[in-house]
């Protein structure tokens, strides 16, 4: 915003170089006005940004089906009791198997495979390695990597997925819909078996319907190795198989060579899990949608499922929420204030009905916070995340039945309703001629039927980062003035290279941040087994020694260097703020939620940072308060600190040295999932935080 204004100014000067000064344009005047009064505006804008974030639950809109072709619920369900009995039979057989056998081999897979082929599906088995993601710094943003073959493949541990394909009778086989049910083939699980029952019920129906236009793939993944990894392995094999010989094929008695089958471009995927018992009177359906780096599936997919679940099958639908926020009193007070304001507004004008009850507000903000958090973390919330890497819209449906898993009587009804929900969803997706593109991809959910689109939620972020360029400009002017005063030769000082020293320092620290970001990769290469705690200590010591080296090598970088070498703190802060602004804006493009949360932390820290020494010297209340605030903010802003605080918010208190281990594990998970948040922390947040620290201890 401000750079634009500056450009304008520049233009203005160029046009009438040498000629008398003309009156600046209003927009330029406005810019100068903003820059001149930046402290006031920065407070106003930041407060407005936080307020806009708090107000978001009020601005949430009801979801609607954007793509007309979906037509959810318009067709009568064709599911019959015969299909349900097929599903029940499979569950019974699996349970019987568990009663008589110990979990070894691939018998359960074969049993499921036999059921699939009896229904008329093409069945195959896929072996995969549980070896997960390996961090490689240079492959960070590269897409899903092609199947890297490990030389020393051991047959000791491998998973076996089962997949069945129903070919659409009159379809052309260009597209397919994938149904995934994770199942632990070794330990079983009563609830997990129910998910197989639902899908098998549905599969039995789909095998004989004539309306299919897309092929249906039912994938039963080996959830022994987590939910995500088997799906990712299957998708890798589906999309980028290796034609080279693999040792894995020779493992076990099951020969899976050359049997992998495909069914065209995947149009959508549904992951079904049955998990735990519902606490409510109804069966509960939880929807998980967040994929890696805050990518979301098309909103229409969630809408269809939500519509069918609520209006047709009578499920209680929910999305994740931060439970601790539900009981927080401050949020409740805010909700009540908003409710009162809403009521007041309605009395003034009956058309202004933006007010929502405080309870709804509380619920909405808890969901919104969870939505923001999951997106910001950049780690997929379920196996559906693997699909998003291949541009496939996918969600995870987790159904919690209200009955215990061994209740036979309720099971029939449960299968019928679950399968009807999936049938309706598949039928809608099947109706689609084009891929999902009508509805939103960038949104935050405040409830299963309410969303905030990108156009609304980015206002909060824009308001938060708006003060940064203003403050940077005003600080720069201030710093230049101070420099001009301090030296005698005015010609030298008026050169525009005054920011260069500061920029050097900022650059050096960003470089340091980059190196620190890459360090874990090298620490992982260190031979020998190390606990996460030791690794974090290793990382911490290396990083701090690197920091010290940086301070030693580059003069003027260190906050402890003598006054003459040091740069003017105002200029340094100006450059820091500019760097933070650029970093935040870049991050907002990659992962908006990260940028939003990052801005909440970084913007106040950057704005408040000022040297502590003059404040202590002056001993004025105002400056002391400012110094105290900046110190508090800096403490919170330290990534490890923030991690601990957020852990505490979620109800898990971590203290002491174990914190380091926890933090390391958390970071490891971030880079293993290729989350851009990791890069953000290392390359934007950490350098800016260090720079703020430098400013705090600046010897001026």
């Amino acid at each position: 915003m401000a750079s634009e204004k500056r450009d304008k100014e520049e233009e203005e000067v160029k046009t009438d170089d040498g000629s008398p000064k003309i009156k600046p344009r209003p927009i330029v005047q406005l810019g100068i006005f903003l820059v001149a009064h930046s402290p006031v505006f920065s407070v106003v804008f930041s407060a407005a940004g936080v307020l806009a974030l708090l107000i978001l639950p009020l601005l949430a809109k009801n979801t609607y089906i954007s793509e007309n072709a979906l037509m959810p619920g318009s067709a009568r369900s064709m599911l019959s009791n015969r299909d349900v009995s097929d599903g029940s039979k499979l569950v019974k057989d699996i349970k019987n198997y568990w009663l008589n056998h110990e979990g070894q081999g691939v018998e359960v897979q074969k049993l499921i495979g036999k059921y699939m082929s009896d229904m008329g599906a093409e069945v195959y088995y896929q072996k995969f390695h549980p070896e997960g993601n390996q961090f490689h710094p240079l492959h960070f943003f590269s897409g899903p990597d092609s199947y890297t073959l490990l030389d020393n493949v051991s047959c000791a541990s491998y998973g076996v997925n089962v997949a069945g394909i129903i070919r659409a009778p009159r379809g052309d086989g260009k597209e397919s819909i994938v149904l995934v049910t994770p199942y632990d083939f070794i330990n079983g699980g009563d609830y997990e078996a129910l998910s197989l029952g639902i899908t098998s019920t549905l599969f039995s129906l789909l095998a004989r319907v004539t309306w299919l236009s897309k092929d249906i793939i039912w994938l039963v993944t080996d959830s022994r190795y987590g939910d995500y990894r088997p799906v990712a392995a299957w998708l890798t094999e589906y999309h980028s198989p290796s034609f080279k010989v693999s040792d894995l094929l020779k493992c076990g008695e099951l020969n899976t060579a050359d049997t992998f089958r495909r069914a065209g471009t995947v149009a959508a995927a549904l992951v079904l899990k049955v998990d735990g018992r519902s606490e409510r009177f109804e069966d509960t359906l939880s929807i998980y949608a967040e994929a890696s780096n805050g990518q979301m599936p098309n909103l229409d997919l969630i809408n269809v499922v939500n519509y069918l679940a609520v209006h047709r099958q009578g499920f209680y639908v929910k999305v994740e929420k931060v439970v601790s926020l539900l009981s927080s009193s401050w949020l409740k007070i805010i909700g009540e204030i908003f409710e009162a304001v809403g009521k007041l507004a309605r009395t003034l004008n009956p058309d202004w009905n933006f007010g929502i009850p405080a309870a709804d507000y509380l619920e909405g903000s808890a969901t919104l916070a969870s939505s923001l958090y999951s997106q910001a973390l950049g780690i997929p919330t379920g196996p559906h995340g693997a699909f998003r890497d291949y541009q496939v819209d996918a969600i995870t449906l987790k159904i919690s039945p209200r009955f215990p898993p061994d209740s036979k009587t309720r099971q029939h009804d449960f299968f019928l309703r679950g399968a009807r929900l999936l049938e309706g969803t598949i039928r809608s997706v099947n109706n689609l001629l084009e891929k999902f593109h009508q509805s939103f991809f960038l949104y935050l959910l405040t409830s299963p039927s309410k969303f905030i689109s990108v156009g609304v939620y980015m206002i909060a972020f824009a308001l938060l980062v708006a003060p940064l360029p203003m403050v940077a400009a005003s600080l720069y002017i201030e710093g230049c003035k101070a420099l001009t005063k301090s030296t005698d030769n005015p010609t030298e000082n008026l050169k525009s290279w005054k920011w260069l020293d500061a920029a050097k320092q900022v650059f050096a620290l960003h470089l340091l941040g980059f190196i620190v970001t890459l360090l874990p990769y090298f620490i992982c290469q260190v031979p020998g087994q190390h606990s996460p705690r030791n690794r974090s200590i290793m990382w911490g010591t290396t990083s701090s020694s690197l920091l010290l080296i940086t301070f030693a090598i580059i003069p003027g970088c260190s906050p402890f260097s003598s006054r003459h070498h040091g740069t003017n703190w105002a200029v340094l802060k100006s450059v820091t703020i500019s760097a933070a602004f650029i970093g935040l804006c870049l991050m907002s493009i990659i992962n908006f939620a990260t940028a939003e949360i990052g801005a909440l932390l970084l913007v106040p820290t950057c704005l408040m940072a000022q040297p502590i020494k003059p404040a202590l010297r002056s001993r004025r209340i105002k400056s002391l308060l400012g110094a105290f605030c900046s110190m508090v903010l800096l403490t919170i802003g330290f990534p490890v600190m923030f991690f601990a605080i957020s852990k505490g918010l979620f109800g898990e208190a971590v203290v002491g040295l174990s914190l380091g281990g926890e933090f390391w594990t958390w970071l490891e998970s971030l880079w293993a999932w290729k989350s851009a948040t990791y890069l953000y922390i290392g390359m934007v947040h950490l350098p800016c935080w260090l720079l703020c620290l430098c400013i705090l201890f600046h010897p001026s």
Partner: protein
Amino acid sequence: MACLVRSWIPLLFLQSFLVAIAFGSNEGEEFSEELLLKPLPDRKVLAHFHFENRAPPSNSHGRNHHLFPKAISQLVQKFRVKEMELSFTQGRWNHEHWGGFDPLSSMNAKPVGVELWAVFDVPQSQVDISWKNLTHALSGLFCASINFLESSTSYAAPTWGFGTNSDKLRYGSLPREAVCTENLTPWLKLLPCRDKDGISALMNRPSVYRGFYHSQRLHLSTVESGQEGLGSGIVLEQTLTVVIQPETTSVETNMQPSWSLSSLFGRKVVGSCVLAKSSNVYLQLEGRLGHESKNVDTEIEAHKLWMNSDFDLSLKPDRVIRESSSLLFIFDIDKSSDSEPFDLGLTWKLPSKWSCEQAPLHASRFLMGSGNERGAIAILLKATESQEKLSGRNLTTDGRCTIKANIFQIFPWYIKVYYHTLQIFVDQQQKTDSEVLKKINVSPSTDKVSSGMLEMMLELPCEVKSAAISIEYDKGFLHIDEYPPDANQGFDIPSALISFPSHHASLDFQEELSKSPLLSSFKEKSLVRSYTEVLLVPLTTPDFSMPYNVITITCTIFALYFGSLLNVLRRRIGEEERFLKSQAGKKRGGLKQLLSRLTAKIRGRPIEAPSSESPAAESSFLSSKLIFKIILVAGAAAAWQYFSTDK
């Protein structure tokens, strides 16, 4: 009564006229109708309608046709078509269950949508023009958008990969063409009896289109007479292949469903088409059924063939012919009438299982990669069970047993294929091109002008288990008005054709046959070919559904235009300058001073003294700096490349 008589008289006239044509046609135009029914191993029934219409060679000028459709003969004469085939297909042929090594499947298993190929008898330079005209003519004739094949981006000229060696051959296919009764009606119009009488009366639209596979084909070829002055004769072959699932009430899953013509089609045959020379119905039973009964000497044993412990036929066949692996029952429907309609039924009594003979290699094709940037097309050839039986036939000169496979593939221009990335894996071992690739012919695509084509001949060892071919591509960008209506669905890559030049399918009848066109075409050796799936490539698609963008751009342009126009009209420059000069003497405010400072700083120049450096020195300094920068960037790029390719 009078009414009845009045309606009878024209009918009688017509009848006698038709009979006169049918029997008094000394020109020799022949029409025959046949229907082949075949139970399939996966509890479905294949019905293959075959109509053949022959026009003998005659003087091409002023010729008069009695049976032969005039539209087709005009087409042949006008565009000098030597051979042509047009097929409309819905659904996929299941090579595993429905067979891939018999003449029926190699001729009638067609790719989804429309496929057209034609050989012309015109000079080389006119082939493309003839093709374009032909597509338009066919488009009108069959109510289909065959005219889209006119554009040079949608057809290709295969040289040898297609199986027919001719440089006047053009091939094109439209995978997205929806096939419906609209296309069937004009096709039926070419038959002398349409669908009013004879076997074609069975074609009840709902039952035909309810099938799992539906392919309507028109094949015509000209027969040179060899005599001076006479034109060429035309053979028009019209086939309709449908795979239908008979409705069954039994819950027994391993029992084959019983069916009859009326249960399959909802109609019965009441008499043959009067104009047809022969009208037969065949029932082919494959697999172990054929082997079971060896001797057909006596009447009782013959009777056993069609009424035994396994199955019952509702009608007595006129003849039974044995083939190497199947039985063929022949029924003449001439005898049927209104009172006694021909309604062939097959009732299974015992569960039976058999399998169809498959092509030596099963081909499947899929896309690799994801996202909107790069990708690869892979063709996977897998050995089938019948491969072992077939192998050993084709020994090369040095005694090695090999299977030859031709791959013919058209790439639309927006799939920019990198032919150098062709990789061939045989049994999971990467092979060099020279090891397995016997012949290859590539014609690269030109953007928006022509499509690319790839013809490959692979020579694989007989004991091959699997072979994979992958080739990388980039996705091109289309102009905004080149997108089809449903652009977000993605774009189709037409089916690849895999043919096995050293394998030929034919039915080997032990007895001499009557002149049945269908059976004689089965008896001829036909190239074994199979089509792969159609692929869907998602391309980058602009957001068409957003009128907002359009409104914004339009409004911006309007604002800029009117704003500048008003500025020009309203402002008085001289006046402003005079005003500024008067102002210049006055003291400037603090804010303005700040501004001038700021602007000076931003420009990087002091207000007082402009830069005095000579431009030459500056430029040399700049250039050395520039070179340094370039070297730095190049070094960084090289380092990046080195590290990213590592591992």
